[in-house]
């Protein structure tokens, strides 16, 4: 039974690691994007 549990854990660990990685990267990108958008708007403002 340990082998079965081990195999299932490995598959779900890989899947959740990927989901977590996407979510983490998305959060970082959103933050960076929001900061950059503000800078772009500030730069374009006086024109």
């Amino acid at each position, binding site marked *: 039974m340990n*082998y079965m549990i081990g*195999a*299932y854990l490995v598959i779900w660990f890989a899947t959740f690691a990927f989901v977590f990685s*996407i979510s983490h990267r*998305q959060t970082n990108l959103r933050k960076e994007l929001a900061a950059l958008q503000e800078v*772009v708007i500030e*730069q374009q403002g006086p024109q």
Partner: protein
Amino acid sequence: MNRSDRILTVLTVIAALGILGAIVMALWVAPDAVGLTRDNTFAQRIIYFHVPSAWLSMLAFGVTMIASIIYLITSKRKWDSLALSSAELGLIFTLAAMASGSIWARPAWNTWWTWDPRLTTYTIMFLLFVAYFMLRSAMEDPARRARFAAVYGIFAFLSVPITFMSIRWWRTIHPVLIDPKEGFGLSPSMMSAFFFSLGAFTLLYVVLLWHRVRLEGSREQLEVLKEQLDR
């Protein structure tokens, strides 16, 4: 929330429910295999997730190959994003299939690993797609990177049919689940759990790919903004 967000949310929920259903089918609904030791009877249930993981790895690399061909024809960046996203998923599911297969092999073959043709070709396929990412990270210019990666992605995909056919072409100890002569190697009640799991995993792949492609879209948006700032 726009229409595509709503569809993606619904699909994500369905995929999560599908995976829960697949776990129930694999662990409780599917019958025990007959004539195996206690350890092997439990280990046999690994196939309900091991085979779908292996299928997804090959499907993902197939999508990478098709997206790469379309990128070379159209030069549109969205196809490069799709190829990259699918290759990343392919690697994740390759790792999951290799690890779960190795755990299954311990009670079934009395070893964690052996250089059987299927395991060898699968490892080569994995390494070829690891190299795909190394190639991408070695290039700065996005257009050049996408072009080289597309050509390499098509070449690397050649390992997929060889891996798939390896257990049919060469002498191997790896089980052949679908044999043109002997039919399907599972009982009908096992087959329903197996195909349910295969469907749930395929939907999971579609959902994860969609999320990953959106992430790539955000990253490209960021690059455009950075370019605007540099001007």
